[in-house]
């Protein structure tokens, strides 16, 4: 799906990408990691045909600069920093749908899965949306289009747990036939989303490894927490995670598989308050009988 050969890019007199060779077969999900300035965003911009470069870049055999319309028709892109677009949400959706041959209904359906009420924000300028709303809309615009390659630059950074769960579900639904390139500063953020990790360091590939598919996309963990006392800040965050207090001091619900490390981070921050943690893959009694709380 992606073939980079000797990809080199210099900016401001320095080499940001230095002879990068990378081949990504269709259907692979890659975590592109590296520190600031490693070259992740530059690599994305080369893939999107936005930068000039030395070497060769091909998406499904097409040069994204010389054949940009055909090549980019296959690509859905979510930028790390939302653009400061002044246009209303409806105008943005319409524009993206028109130039990419997408169905506005498909984009709306993805937004709905992410709990973004398009009708409620359609007249609002994109730039006036909250960070989370912008991220959800950008994801909906990328995933609601007919694409075969997703380039996601820190895609879930601004999402709440429920939206993250829905986002992982959406990616899981496309895992078989969509190639994904997901960047992050931290591998633990996206490790469970991918089956290959590529680390960039000073513009070169420093690590290229496949990873086991543990905690795969679409998996769900049943959660039960016991706390020693009531604590409003804990309760608020637990609600954000979709947990419900089933008994005094006892919380239960589900957490998306790829989000379990983040969830454990939340538990660790309240270790003085938490008496017991149960985290089991699959749905628990409550969820199976319909009494549980879905994470999405």
């Amino acid at each position, binding site marked *: 799906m992606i073939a980079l050969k000797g990809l080199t890019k210099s900016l401001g007199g320095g080499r940001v990408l230095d002879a990068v060779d990378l081949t990504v077969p269709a259907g692979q999900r890659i975590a592109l990691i590296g520190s600031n300035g490693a070259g992740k965003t530059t690599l994305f*911009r080369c893939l*999107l045909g*936005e*930068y*000039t470069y030395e070497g060769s870049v091909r998406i499904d055999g097409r040069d994204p600069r010389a054949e*940009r*319309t*055909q*090549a*980019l*028709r*296959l*690509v859905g*892109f979510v*930028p790390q*920093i*939302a*653009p*400061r*677009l*002044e*246009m*209303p949400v409806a*105008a943005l959706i*319409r*524009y*993206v749908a*028109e*130039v*990419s*041959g*997408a*169905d506005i209904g*498909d984009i709306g*359906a*993805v937004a709905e*899965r992410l709990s973004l009420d398009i009708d409620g924000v359609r007249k609002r300028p994109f730039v006036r949306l909250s960070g989370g709303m912008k991220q959800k809309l*950008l994801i909906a615009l990328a*995933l*609601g*289009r*007919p*694409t*075969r390659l997703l380039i996601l630059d820190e895609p879930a950074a601004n999402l709440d747990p429920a939206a993250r769960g829905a986002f992982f*579900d*959406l990616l*899981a*639904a*496309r895992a078989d036939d969509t190639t994904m390139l997901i960047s992050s500063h931290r591998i633990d953020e996206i490790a469970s989303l991918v089956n290959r990790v590529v680390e960039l360091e000073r513009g070169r590939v420093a690590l290229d490894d496949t990873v086991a598919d543990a905690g795969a*996309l*679409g*998996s*769900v963990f049943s959660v039960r927490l016991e706390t020693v006392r009531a604590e409003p800040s804990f309760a608020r965050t637990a609600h954000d995670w979709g947990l419900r207090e089933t008994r005094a001091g006892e919380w239960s619900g*589900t957490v998306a598989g790829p989000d379990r490390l983040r969830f454990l981070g939340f538990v660790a921050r309240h270790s003085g308050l938490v008496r017991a943690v149960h985290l089991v893959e*699959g*749905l628990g009694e409550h969820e199976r009988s319909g009494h549980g709380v*879905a994470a*999405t």
Partner: protein
Amino acid sequence: MRDTRVDHPRPAEARAGFWPGFLATFRLEIAEAFRARWFAAYALVFFGLVGVLLVFGLTESRVLGFTGLSRTLVTYIQLTMAILPIFILVTTVRSLTGDREAGVFEYILGLPVGIGAWYAGRFVGRFCLAAAPVVAAILGAVVYGVVRGVAVPWVELGFDIGLLLVLILVFVGLGFLISTITRSVDTAQTIAFILWLVFILSLDLVLLGALIRGRMAVEGVVAIAMLNPLQVFRTGSMLLFDPQLVLLGPTAYTVFDIFGRTGFMIWSFVYPAALGLAAALAGYWFLRRGDLP
């Protein structure tokens, strides 16, 4: 396990390349302008200008040989020449370079829209936006004049509207060129302002000083006047109202003497149009061969 099946769209067949991207971008440019403050201020200036001129100027009194709508039109044209270029330059470079700074280029040009279609859509959209209030204000004055029973100088009117359109084309084109070769709004605005200043300082009346001091050859002064789109517009716009160009300066008179009336009329259309389109195409060339964001 939750049901993770989601119907997702399948890759579509590629549609015809240029027109969908062009039309979508053109429509977006127009729609954006109606929400933008710059366009409201821009339209207000020209409609306000015509309103004031009609209230205070549409009389049968004779000033320097002009009466009624002719006088209003001449005054409007002269004022337009002062306001229009800098207004178009600044708003155009702010819009385009501002979009680049705001990450809009990175996102929009990551979509399957051709650079040519996107650039042309924005260029044509911006041209229409810049032209619409200027021409509409004149037409409003004409309607007002007809209702009041004042004679309308139709030939002069058509000629001057054409000149205004090519003047707008020049400065939209230059605005696009500046925007594609600069990376920050500050730099783009500075270049735009300096360019406008150069044109102003190359006007006939300023060149007269150089001529009088004898520091420049007449041919040099005439060449500068001929290449300055503001001077070409100024001379061309007075051509029909003042065939002897007695109200203009010495270089205009010399230019008229060399070209003749018809020759200058053709030049006053062809040169600015060619300059504006050449600037726009140069901008497109720079954009295509460089980094987009």
